[in-house]
């Protein structure tokens, strides 16, 4: 590849850390700490508890003014904070000379869920006849992109991607294509989700996929997924641009793969996952044996874990089976922000030459016959790592990073 795409900045806010340094420390500590706890949902007739990976020590008014908060749903707050960290980390100066050549592509699965639920509560439970006039600008899934662009004066292509749990994977892929085609020079990419709302818990509960005790991906007798909130952002640019300005290159993004199962709105299909991984390998001009570690989608549902395992077994032969782990047991399933946070996890694995562990693993599942790194991290020589995201609707992305 003539001019590789590199990651020059990273930022995140999640249950497992409010910045990349904290996230890294938590992901690679000798014994994984638990960042998932029951969250109380109060209803007039009953109280319920749902497991959640909630951002900790976060007080919105420490980061935003009262006036700003009127227009920022929590998902947009998280997006702004992670983008701010990534831009600062990349030491990217945004000014009149480059503002038209910078893009913001940020994904979200559901956007301003808290705003929607508050407005509905006012209308349908509290008997009010009006909602706050900023309800619409706050709930729009694209509002996070708009706020990031406004804050930094970014005037290049700016839009949201929404493909459920692959949203930020598609954001990264779209920005990569724009960088490769020289439409832009820099991209602020990522995803954000603030999904720990009463209505959303009950909606997911209805699908019977939420864990009742712990999130233990690829473990037999798993109990389901645990929703998490937060955001992750990365700065992408061409390697030549990064070198010219003396930027740090955390990793090269060498392969992007995207596919659609065209099968079922909730039931995943192994062939779709395979196709995304094969597309990423082809794009990177790599063979399966070049991949040393896969940060799996590994949501902790039976359907995902068994399908993803079958897909991995089909693409990667036994002799050179890459290490596999899911970090969702640590930071939860951040829906549209997941792919971006897990891309950071994969890049950190490259940096530390260590595979992060799959938390809470109890017992091997014969239907998940993969080279799983369970409970304890593993030091390994890692040259290429893959990060998978598979979403409802069979919308798949696979990204390959190189050291």
């Amino acid at each position, binding site marked *: 590849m003539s001019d590789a795409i590199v990651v020059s900045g990273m930022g995140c806010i999640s249950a497992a850390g409010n910045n990349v340094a904290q996230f890294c420390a938590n992901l690679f500590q000798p014994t994984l700490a638990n960042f998932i706890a029951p969250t109380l949902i109060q209803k007039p007739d009953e109280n319920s508890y749902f497991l959640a990976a909630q951002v900790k020590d976060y007080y919105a008014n420490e980061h935003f003014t009262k006036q700003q908060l*009127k227009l920022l749903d929590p998902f947009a707050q998280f997006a702004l904070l992670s983008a701010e960290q990534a831009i600062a980390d990349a030491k990217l100066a945004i000014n009149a000379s480059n503002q038209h050549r910078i893009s913001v592509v940020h994904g979200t699965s559901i956007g301003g869920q808290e705003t929607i639920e508050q407005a509905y509560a006012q209308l349908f439970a509290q008997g009010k006849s*009006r909602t*706050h*006039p*900023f309800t619409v600008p706050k709930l729009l899934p694209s509002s996070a992109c708009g706020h990031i662009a406004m804050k930094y004066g970014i005037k290049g292509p700016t839009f949201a991607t929404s493909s459920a749990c692959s949203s930020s994977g598609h954001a990264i892929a779209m920005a990569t294509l724009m960088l490769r085609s020289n439409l832009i020079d820099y991209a602020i990419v990522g995803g954000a989700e603030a999904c720990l709302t009463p209505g959303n818990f009950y909606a997911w509960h209805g699908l019977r996929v939420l864990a009742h005790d712990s999130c233990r991906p690829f473990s037999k007798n798993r109990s389901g997924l645990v929703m998490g909130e937060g955001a992750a952002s990365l700065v992408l640019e061409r390697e030549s641009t990064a070198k010219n300005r003396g930027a740090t290159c955390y990793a090269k993004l060498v392969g992007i793969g995207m596919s659609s199962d065209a099968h079922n709105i909730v039931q995943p299909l192994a062939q779709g996952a395979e196709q995304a991984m094969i597309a990423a390998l082809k794009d990177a001009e790599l063979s399966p044996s070049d991949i040393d570690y896969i940060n799996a989608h590994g949501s902790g549902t039976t359907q995902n874990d068994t399908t993803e395992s079958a897909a991995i077994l089909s693409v990667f032969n036994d002799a050179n089976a890459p290490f596999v782990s899911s970090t969702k047991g640590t930071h939860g399933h951040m829906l549209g922000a997941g792919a971006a946070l897990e891309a950071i996890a994969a890049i950190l694995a490259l940096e530390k030459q260590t595979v992060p562990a799959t938390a809470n693993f109890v017992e091997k599942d014969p239907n998940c016959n993969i080279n799983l790194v369970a409970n304890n991290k593993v030091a390994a020589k890692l040259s290429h790592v893959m990060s998978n995201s598979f979403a409802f609707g069979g919308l798949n992305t696979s990204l390959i990073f190189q050291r």
Partner: protein
Amino acid sequence: MQSIEEKLQSIFSDYTEQDIELVANAQSLDEIGIDSLSIVEIIFDIEEAFDIKIPDESVLQKQGYSFSNYRDILTLVSDLVKQEHENV
């Protein structure tokens, strides 16, 4: 109990730091630093505070009302509150 004017002043004080004399005498809301985004919020706050419904701009114009400065808004709100009382 707060008068209509006191309640309205209290709402305006959330959107402008200008002295009330200046607010009351300004010819336009723009003059006292209230932008179009704040105007929709002020309309919402007034509707909530007085439990009234402020008609759309075209309807207001036909009725001879305006929402262009503090004095006009005070007149409008006073009339709407009065109508509301008459309807009860």
